[in-house]
């Protein structure tokens, strides 16, 4: 009772704001109008009455849209999240993915010998720190940035993705633990488990050797799933699906969801969305606040697809297909 009362007082103000702001999240009809809009000017007009209107007011190109959406996220983190009274670890939890996205970009351009494009300023580390040998980066990130410097040939890009994903999930799990918010810890564990199951299914489809599967696994999730790594590439798909379900790592996941990567991705997105919906319905505590921030992030991703996609010439049906999970 003491903990819940403390949380009620600590997060009450932010929960109150979220109760109003949640009603202002983009509705399905707004997404439909964005998809059906004949050009970007009409899309901008549709969004003019929403929270994104002031950011997109002077946007004309894809780069303008990216900058405007980043600015809206920056305000969300700076104004809302910092003012919500959440622990510092939570603010870092939301900003860390941008650091690792920058690291991924810097690493890829480094091994390919290309010039680095503009990096995101939404992370906890200044983009300039990713230049050179990363002297301004934390040790773990700096060593990852220079890991392949002495290699005779460039590593496959999949290896870079895996290495950065490992580091990102480890950092997120650390921040979730430091936040002492059970919902954030559960959400991180769920996302790690979903990522591990994806690795196992991919290994099964490609008949990968145990060593290759073990290299791709991510720590911090349910340990029972990791025990399947050595056999994932050898057994038939139905058998693996049965074993994954038997671990009970992700309740709500059935064997039918594990028959193909496409079906699995849809089921995983649905599970993640269901977890968010239950957090939004929580009467108090940090859950509704975190679910709102995650919802706003998903909204920005969807808008990026709808606006930049159309500016880049993507047809309506392709945009609609990509937004199916959001609408």
């Amino acid at each position, binding site marked *: 009772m003491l903990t819940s009362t403390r949380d*009620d*007082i600590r997060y*009450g*103000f932010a*929960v*109150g*704001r979220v109760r109003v*702001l949640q*009603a202002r999240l983009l509705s399905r009809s707004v997404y439909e109008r964005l998809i059906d809009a004949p050009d970007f000017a009409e899309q901008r007009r549709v969004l003019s009455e929403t929270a994104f209107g002031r950011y997109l007011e002077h946007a004309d190109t894809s780069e303008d849209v990216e900058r405007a959406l980043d600015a809206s996220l920056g305000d969300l983190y700076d104004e809302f999240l910092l003012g919500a009274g959440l622990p510092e670890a939570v603010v870092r939890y939301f900003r860390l993915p941008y650091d690792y996205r920058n690291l991924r970009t810097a690493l890829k351009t480094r091994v390919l010998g290309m010039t680095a494009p503009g990096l995101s300023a939404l992370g906890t580390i200044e983009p300039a720190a990713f230049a050179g040998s990363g002297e301004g980066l934390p040790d773990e990130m700096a060593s990852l940035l220079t890991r392949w410097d002495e290699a005779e040939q460039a590593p496959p890009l999949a290896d870079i993705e895996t290495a950065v994903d490992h580091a990102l999930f480890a950092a997120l799990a650390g921040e979730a633990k430091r936040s002492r918010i059970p919902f954030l810890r559960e959400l991180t564990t769920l996302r790690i488990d979903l990522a591990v199951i994806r690795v196992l299914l991919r290994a099964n489809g490609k008949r990968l050797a145990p060593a290759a599967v073990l290299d791709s696994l991510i720590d911090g999730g349910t340990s029972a799933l990791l025990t399947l790594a050595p056999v994932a590439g050898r057994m038939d798909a139905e058998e693996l699906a049965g074993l994954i379900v038997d671990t009970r790592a992700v309740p709500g996941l059935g064997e039918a969801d594990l028959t193909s990567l496409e079906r699995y991705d849809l089921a995983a997105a649905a599970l993640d969305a269901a977890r968010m919906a239950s957090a939004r319905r929580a009467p*108090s505590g940090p859950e509704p606040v975190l679910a709102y921030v995650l919802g706003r992030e998903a909204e920005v991703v969807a808008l990026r697809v709808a606006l930049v996609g159309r500016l880049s010439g993507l047809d309506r049906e392709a945009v609609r297909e990509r937004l199916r999970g959001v609408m």
Partner: protein
Amino acid sequence: MSDLFWGVSGINWALFGGGVAAVLGGIGSAIGITIASATVSGIVTEDGEKFGKLLPLAAMPSTQGIYGFIAAVLVLIFFNILGGEATLTGAQGFAVFLACLPVAFLCMFTGIYQGKTGAAAAGIVARRSEDSGKALIFPALVETYAVFSLIVTVLMMTALQATFGG
């Protein structure tokens, strides 16, 4: 008949009971109002027009503090402590103390839980202003038990007053 009960005089036991009722009721109200007000303030920050409809939800837990205060005043009046003519033995004073416990503890807990219920119900008003009447019902249900506790305490003190001839 001893004048002391566990080393404490009757008047002091009675004062202790009245004090506990007033303090715990006040604590319950203060925490409850803080919880409900935090959420209400957040909603009003984003939508100032809802202030009038949300104010009763934030104010509702204040009644528990009033019930504790009433119990404390009744102790002072019923047993002539206020007039300076109290003649309670230690055991009688302890009985008065016990009579104060229902309102003391129930008001503390219902105050806190009414604040939590009020904060949750404020979400209904944030979503649909026209449902503000419905939102008031849930914290009002919690109020019932605070009222019951005050009635029990008053009945017990009335019975004790009749028994002691205070």
